């Protein structure tokens, strides 16, 4: 078992006296699906945003695919990680001025210097895998939320990442669109992708996660396999959260 991400004692604060991350340590092994849950403001989004350098650290250190990030890391290290770690946001964040095809092939062409034809071929294959091949020549505004999020997943996959980060990927979707996105993620997990998923989808966590991590107020409250987390959570705080969710 190799370690994809190792976090050691991460501390991050936006305002003095209030830590968004208050000493978080964890390990994600290669091929594992880790679901991070917790009430809003618990620091779970901040946590996964530190994994690819979107948030800086006040102290502590990260080892992401062998690259070290800490309070004093350089931009170069972050770039090295971002080419190997894909990310999907709550609000999709597609580029509205580019077609779906261009959204997906932009980074392969500009960052990996692939040939345009090859990059577009790959984009079509990924769209096919996401079940939205026929949308290739449309623009983001013409797609439903669920379709846009699947494009965002395809865009991240186009760089052939070793780890995928999902930051509440279904929270901005209509309820009837949630399933199509979760199905795409399920498929990805089956293919052996290392995934860290921040979500409130209990069903997805129970079914797909290898481990569930519960956070509150910037701290890890508990980490366990989904079976025992959902039926028999160790901590009182986790049980209270779960009782409100169900």
């Amino acid at each position: 078992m190799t370690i994809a991400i190792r976090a050691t004692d991460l501390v991050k604060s936006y305002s003095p006296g209030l830590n968004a991350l208050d000493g978080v340590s964890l390990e994600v092994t290669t091929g594992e699906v880790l679901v991070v849950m917790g009430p809003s403001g618990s620091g779970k989004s901040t946590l996964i945003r530190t994994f690819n350098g979107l948030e800086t650290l006040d102290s502590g250190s990260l080892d992401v695919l062998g690259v070290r990030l800490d309070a004093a890391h350089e931009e170069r290290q972050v770039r090295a990680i971002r080419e190997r770690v894909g990310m999907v946001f709550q609000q999709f964040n597609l580029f509205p001025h580019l077609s779906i095809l261009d959204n997906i092939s932009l980074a392969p062409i500009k960052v990996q210097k692939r040939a345009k034809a090859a990059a577009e071929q790959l984009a079509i294959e990924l769209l096919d895998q996401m079940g939205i091949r026929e949308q290739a020549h449309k623009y983001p505004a013409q797609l439903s939320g669920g379709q846009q999020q699947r494009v965002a997943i395809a865009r991240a996959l186009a760089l052939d990442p070793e780890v995928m980060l999902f930051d509440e990927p279904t929270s901005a979707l209509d309820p009837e669109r949630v399933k199509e996105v979760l199905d795409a993620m399920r498929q990805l997990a089956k293919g052996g992708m290392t995934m860290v998923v921040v979500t409130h989808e209990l069903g997805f966590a129970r079914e797909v996660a290898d481990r569930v991590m519960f956070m509150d107020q910037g701290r890890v409250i508990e980490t366990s396999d989904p079976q025992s987390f959902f039926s028999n959570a160790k901590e009182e705080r986790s049980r209270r959260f779960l009782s409100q969710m169900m």
Partner: protein
Amino acid sequence: MNRWLDRWLTLMLLALLGWAGWSCLHWLWHGADWTVVVTNLPLYAVGSYPDAERWRPLLCIVAVVVLIVITLLGPRHGGWRRSLPLLWSAMAPLGIWLLAGGLGLSPVGTQSWGGFSLTLLLTAGSGLLALPLGVLLALGRRSDLPVLRGGSTAYIELMRAIPLIAVLFFGQLLIPLFLPPGVEINRVLRAVVAFALFAAAYIAEDVRGGLQAIPPTQREAAAVLGLSPWQSLQLVVLPQAFRVALPSLTNQAVGLLQNTSLMAILGLVELLGISRSLLANPAFIGRYLEVYIWLAAVYWLACTAMALLARHLEIQLDPVRSAR
């Protein structure tokens, strides 16, 4: 009771408008003497450009008009459409070459440039200089480096606090003082530079508005895909910011065209300068109305063409609308 008053008022107003309109039309057809315009059309087009070389500025004007017509009415897709940006960007160097000469054409000094061709050149020249400068200023104003941010902000605020005419006079009188003796920049170039320095401050604010309209999440999305900050700016942020800023940039362009008339005060014989020198000619004494109506019509036509082009560009740049 009220109804009768309304009817009566309406009729009276219609009669008044009709009478005013009729007398205007009557004056335009019968009262006005258009010889001052008709006989001087070549002067309006090219100024006092040497007779033998007049085809050069005329070719400039014709090329621009043809390009406008093709852009607005030409085919929507295919090779023509794709080569249009190239043709448009070739227009400026081509125009300068045709006017100034050199490289096979006999050189013509800027003192002989004039008329509509000079107005076009002043507008295009200062606009093309001001746009990149304005973008740099806008980026500078949003920079994290205090020196850059402070400098850009100070420049923008200073330029916006000075009237254009003062900047133009500074350009004519002060720039030569800073140059070593013997080096001389000609009047047209000085005017274009001063004009561009002024317009850049306003363009910078329009572009900044566009930049602010782009959510920071776009930059994040570009960053996590491994794009460098420069790539993110060039491929993701600026293209979107320009779309947002386009209507206000159009405003600036129209203003630029109209403000070139201020150069007449500096002694350049663009459209207004030509008109003033014509009115000073004893042969055309008192023909103010004719000359200024003609002038207004020419400016109106030029500005309308610009506005139409801008709207066309807006539609072309809107992916969803242009796909229809």
